[in-house]
């Protein structure tokens, strides 16, 4: 024991004056922070993850949670985190696992972009009185239309449109697999997107049969592990998405621990119960862009060219060129996942250090596709760190067609972003397969909350567009003229193709 223990991250205390000794904290905490000893409830702060479940469920506001003050000798380089990571790895000799998104204190570009509004020279549009169009079509569009003359002398449209997904709002829910999250979480989100006329990704864990009623609003993911993939699965989805990479862990695969592979997960993923589900880093049939082209075509053939196929990549340094390559395949949309994207589990070093911000990725992908004249060949779906309607509006103004949200949808179901998803003990019933925990999330209530969130953002977006004198989402898309950069350096302004405030 040469290393000893490190100080607890959080300090939980019970206000004994307030506490009525009901024991709900004990029942609710799946991490075992609370226990009864005699007639007292005892806390063990070291086990706390700050998931806030106990506080949310305490009827008397008797529980206090504090981040434990750092009692290391202060040092600007050897921070608490740096020291504790060394200790953890010295102890284990392994990779440090982490959940949710990047925790680095980098500036958030979204917060340094400001939106525009009309004054005098053009009128703002009131969405309560005038039409406001957010309908978005995701998929391939022709670069121009061709007409032909019929024998009767009429002119008719010759160009045939490729299948597109019709979204009533440009907000979709990204891919979080059944396995990583619970069936009730999946059901909540699936109900919400069906009600709203938008879409949700299945993640790479297949589609549970209870989701079949919502299949017209589901996007079936095909990832490197091919879990749950057969032609029935592909045909159920409204669209198919090939997952190449993920913003939280670009360049590596995934690992669902055997403990999370319950009977239901096992059936849905088509793997033995209790076995680890390993997604390899590359698809073993994709070692080049030509191979990707073949898979896209293969999936299209399997579904008779009736479904759009998306390709999801992590936002890495060369994202623009990669997206341009994807645009030249038969793919209908490219999903770019920024480095703030969430995850159930990722090596900490990847989550915090690999990839680039989504804002920059949208800007450079849109620019590259336009330069090469292939912007209409694919839609751009942006994801990874979209926290609110302002981020949504800015993503679209930078050039995205729509966004995927992930963490925000989880928060709408109760998640408090404690970042311990990989442990399978989520007390909110989201990132867990333990039946008693899963049952805490009521799919009806979850659906209402997720739906409310998307409705709220949609209203915000309508108001922002109306204030900018815009009544159709097409005129917001790529409209970087309506953005200004605040305290962004010249290099970034150039990449974003945005003027500085005041200009």
């Amino acid at each position, binding site marked *: 024991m040469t290393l000893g223990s490190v100080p607890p991250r959080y300090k939980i205390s019970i206000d004994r004056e307030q506490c009525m000794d009901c024991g709900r904290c004990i029942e609710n905490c799946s991490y075992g922070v609370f226990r009864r000893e005699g007639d007292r409830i005892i806390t063990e702060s070291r086990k706390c993850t700050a998931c806030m479940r106990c506080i949310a469920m305490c009827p008397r506001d008797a529980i206090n949670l504090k981040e434990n003050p750092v009692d290391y000798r202060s040092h600007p380089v050897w921070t608490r985190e740096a020291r504790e990571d060394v200790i953890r790895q010295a102890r284990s000799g392994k990779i440090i696992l982490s959940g949710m998104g990047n925790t680095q204190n980098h500036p958030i570009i979204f917060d340094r972009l400001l939106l525009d509004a*009309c004054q005098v*020279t*053009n*009128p703002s*549009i009131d969405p309560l009185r*005038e*039409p406001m*169009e957010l*309908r978005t*079509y995701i998929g391939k*569009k*022709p*670069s*121009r*239309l061709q*007409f032909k003359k019929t024998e009767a002398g009429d002119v*008719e*449209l010759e*160009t045939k*449109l490729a299948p*597109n997904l019709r979204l009533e709002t440009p907000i979709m829910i990204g891919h979080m697999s059944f396995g990583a999250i619970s069936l009730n979480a999946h059901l909540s989100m699936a109900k919400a997107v069906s009600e709203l006329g938008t879409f949700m990704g299945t993640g790479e864990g297949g589609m549970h049969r209870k989701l079949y009623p919502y299949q017209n609003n589901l996007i079936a993911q095909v990832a490197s592990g091919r879990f749950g993939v057969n032609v029935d699965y592909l045909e159920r989805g409204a669209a198919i998405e090939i997952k190449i990479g993920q913003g939280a862990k670009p360049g590596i695969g995934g690992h669902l621990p055997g403990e999370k592979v319950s009977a239901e997960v096992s059936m849905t993923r088509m793997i033995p119960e209790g076995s680890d589900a390993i997604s390899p880093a590359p698809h073993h049939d994709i070692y080049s862009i030509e191979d990707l082209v073949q898979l896209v075509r293969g999936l299209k053939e399997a579904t008779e060219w009736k479904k759009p196929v998306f390709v999801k990549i992590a936002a890495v340094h060369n994202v623009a060129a990669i997206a341009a390559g994807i645009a030249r395949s038969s793919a209908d949309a490219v999903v770019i996942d920024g480095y703030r994207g969430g995850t159930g589990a990722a090596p900490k070093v990847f989550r915090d250090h690999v990839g680039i911000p989504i804002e920059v990725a949208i800007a450079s992908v*849109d620019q590259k596709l*336009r*330069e090469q*004249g292939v*912007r*209409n060949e694919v839609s751009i779906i942006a994801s990874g760190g979209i926290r609110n309607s302002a981020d949504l509006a800015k993503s679209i*103004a930078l*050039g995205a067609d729509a966004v995927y949200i992930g963490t925000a949808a989880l928060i709408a179901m109760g998640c408090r972003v404690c970042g311990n998803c990989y442990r399978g003990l989520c007390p909110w019933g989201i990132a867990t397969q333990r039946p008693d925990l899963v049952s805490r999330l009521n799919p009806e209530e979850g659906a209402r909350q997720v739906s409310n969130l998307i409705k709220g953002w949609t209203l915000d977006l309508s108001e922002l567009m109306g204030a*900018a*004198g*815009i*009544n*159709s989402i*097409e*005129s*917001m*898309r*790529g*409209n*970087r*003229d*309506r953005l200004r950069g605040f305290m962004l350096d010249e290099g970034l302004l150039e990449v974003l193709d945005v003027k500085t405030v005041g200009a």
Partner: protein
Amino acid sequence: MCGIIGVIDRTKSRMDGSCIKAALSLMNERGSGDGAGYVAYGIYPDYADCYALHVFFDNMEEPKEKVDEILQKQGTIVHQEEIPTTEQPGLKKVHIPWRYFFKPFKDQIGGSLGSEDDLVKDIVMEVNAGIKGALVFSSGKNMGVFKASGWPEDVANFFRIEEYEGYIWLAHNRYPTNTPGWWGGAHPFNLLDWSVVHNGEITSYGTNKRYVEGYGYKCTLLTDTEVVAYLFDLLGRKHGLSKERIVKALAPPFWDEIDRMPPAEEELNRAIRLTYGSALMNGPFAIVVASTDGIVGFTDRIKLRPLVVGETENRLYISSEEAAIRVIEPGIENIYTPRAGEPIIGRFNE
């Protein structure tokens, strides 16, 4: 606030510039004396097969030499001269307006330059983006733009527009907010045969600009109207859409309306919106566009700017104000206001 008026004579009888000047001047309240302009079609019958390039030069040395060099490399200058002007007390002559009658070499056409028009378009973009002190502001055949900073009467008298006779005229009286006092910022905006007058502000400019720049157009004139000319050139000339369909792309019906259309019409309108979403123009506008074969006027989809149409047996007028039309046609009977987004098209009789 700006004032616009356009007229087409369907029999191709030519009108001199006096009427249009009087009509535009009536709308002086819509301007601020910072810009006015005219365009007329059919004014250069002697050079009808040449591109009439109107250029503002800051001086006749370096910019002129560079433009000459570009033109001589790619074609023949059939004739060139200073555009005749008469000094006006209320108008400061800050540029030298010049005109070339230019024919591109046939052997320059090929590859991505599919036509003479493509070559001339590239010359215009090259000069306007690359040569300081030179601005091509008119580049069609048998037509010409005349514009400057000043009140409508002063600009008309300066360019002696009463001496030109055309079968289409557009005119514009400017209240600038973007670039006051700059001659290049006055309307009409032109590229090849397309000329645009515009009242309003295009809130989708950033989107439209990104879209046309992907096709080699360069927005150099610091004002939103320019992009309308390029959109018409791209959709009309390059993609071969009719004027009705261009307007359907630029000011499309709402989805609610499209959803209720009969299947074939629904498919067409959905295809236009999907394909040309980035060309959709938002914000308040009333626009009249002219080309060799006619004019088209339209407003934004919720009609945030006025547009009035007047028709006589042979002429179609489109204007910001009825009163302006009545200056030319006091007894006009058929006068109406079109619906939002509805294209008003004036063509020549067959």
